[in-house]
């Protein structure tokens, strides 16, 4: 019984997606919805295959921008998180500023970035970075700030330096927070790259969709949306798997409690 349940659990996402597509298709056909309002899934798939070469080119461009921006976001986010998490003074000084930066709609920033960097790749990478570093920094800082004071006492009374405590306790302890933030940050990085491409680029899925929209090729637009969603899910899954591998100690605990009572 448990094995069947486990199988069902694995199949659930597919059942939901396929079910949704069937309902979508049925609604479009039953109510005779016109294609430029809402294209049927079959029309979207047709559009995808018809234009798969340019779609894949643009998708790769977006993926590259996203991953570069995300990579910079990880480095900056982790360093900033360590910085904020290990000092109360830095936390007090930087946190309001960070919240402010994070609250500004990134679509409003892109024109400024274009002014500085021109169009295309540079603003796309920068926007992806700006959206993705914040959750990483906040999570890393939270992980560090919540180290048990007693554990710190144990280490300090052994003569451990601040760096020792960070290496032996702070960072390993922060790993679950870090990986959780990666899953959020990678999807935000996609959002950032696509926003920037929509506003100022001659390449990328965002640009493709804007072009398709201006020509009322609605199925092509939706094909673009689907490709972004698929890339988002794929990268999310990769980071979820990495998380399971590197922080099994944090999640396995729940499982044993569940099974062992």
């Amino acid at each position, binding site marked *: 019984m448990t094995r069947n349940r486990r199988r069902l659990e694995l199949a659930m996402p597919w059942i939901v997606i396929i079910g949704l597509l069937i309902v979508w298709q049925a609604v479009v056909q039953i109510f005779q919805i016109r294609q430029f309002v809402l294209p049927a899934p079959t029309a979207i798939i047709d559009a995808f295959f018809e234009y798969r070469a340019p779609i894949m080119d643009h998708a790769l461009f977006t993926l590259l921008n996203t991953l570069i921006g995300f990579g910079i976001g990880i480095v900056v986010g982790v360093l900033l998180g360590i910085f904020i998490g290990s000092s109360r003074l830095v936390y007090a000084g930087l946190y309001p500023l960070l919240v402010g930066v994070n609250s500004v709609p990134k679509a409003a920033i892109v024109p400024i970035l274009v002014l500085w960097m021109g169009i295309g790749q540079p603003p796309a990478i920068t926007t992806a970075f700006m959206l993705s570093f914040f959750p990483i920094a906040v999570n890393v800082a939270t992980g560090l700030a919540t180290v048990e004071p007693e554990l710190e006492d144990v280490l300090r*009374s052994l003569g451990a330096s601040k760096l020792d405590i960070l290496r032996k306790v702070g960072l390993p302890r922060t790993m679950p927070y870090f990986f959780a933030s990666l899953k959020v940050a990678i999807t935000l990085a996609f959002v950032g790259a696509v926003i920037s491409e929509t506003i100022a680029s001659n390449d990328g899925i965002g640009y493709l969709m804007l072009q398709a929209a201006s020509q009322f090729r609605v199925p092509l637009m939706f094909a673009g949306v689907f490709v972004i969603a698929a890339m988002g899910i794929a990268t999310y899954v990769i980071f979820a798997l990495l998380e399971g591998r590197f922080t099994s100690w944090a999640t396995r605990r729940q499982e044993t409690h569940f099974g062992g009572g």
Partner: protein
Amino acid sequence: MGVKSFVELDGVSLRYGEVDGTLAIEKVDLGIRAGEFAAVVGPSGCGKSSLMKLVTGLLPPTTGTIRVAGQTVNGPLKIVGMAFQNPTLLPWRNTLSNTMLPFEIVQPHRSRLRFHREEYVALAHKLLAAVGLDGFEQKQPWMLSGGMQQRASLCRALIHNPELLMLDEPFAALDAFTREELWAVLQDLWLEKKFTCTLVTHDLREAAYLADVIFVMSARPGRIVATHRIDLPRPRTLDMTFQPQFVEILHKIRNEIAQARNEVRGVATSAKVAAS
């Protein structure tokens, strides 16, 4: 306080915060000899844990001086083992690796560990076996029961042979039987290694079973109101804790604590009367 005291507190007071902050500890004088097992008992909130932090140098005293091994304490000591009510094991390390944590920090082990790993692993195995954890070395902390985690925590506190062991209610969260088992484990370790030990506890039986000397603290602000020497022979057994002589000691200490609590309550009541 003889000259031979290993831990020596001289007129130590501790106030949290600024001048008008809470006075946690007031004018404490005490001495613990090298190799002695001391216990600090008192009502909750009397500053027992603060006293531990003072001795280990994690907190600076507001007034007075603290000397350990003849040196005035003015920063975290580097030779102390500590264990708390919460075992605070690192969940990403197995029991063996948790126990060996001090070797990664304390010199000279820190520099030697890399090339003499076998030797240190053997030491850890030996200590874990001594507390009854052989066969659990590769288990993660969450696979162990509370009592086992506390045994591992004790091992971590003792593995580098500290001169001073500080225990802050280490057995308070355990069930009665496990607790008594661990008393015996701790006594055996102490008899073998003869480190200087300070145990903070609110369990009088535990204090009297384990300690050579018991310091009774009053309610906040904490002062030492009595000192008892327990001259029962070692190794002590659980049966001894039910004998009249032992029970008499407990009664005496209990009364002193009750008195200390009443004094505070009396002060509080009279203050209330004065206010109205």
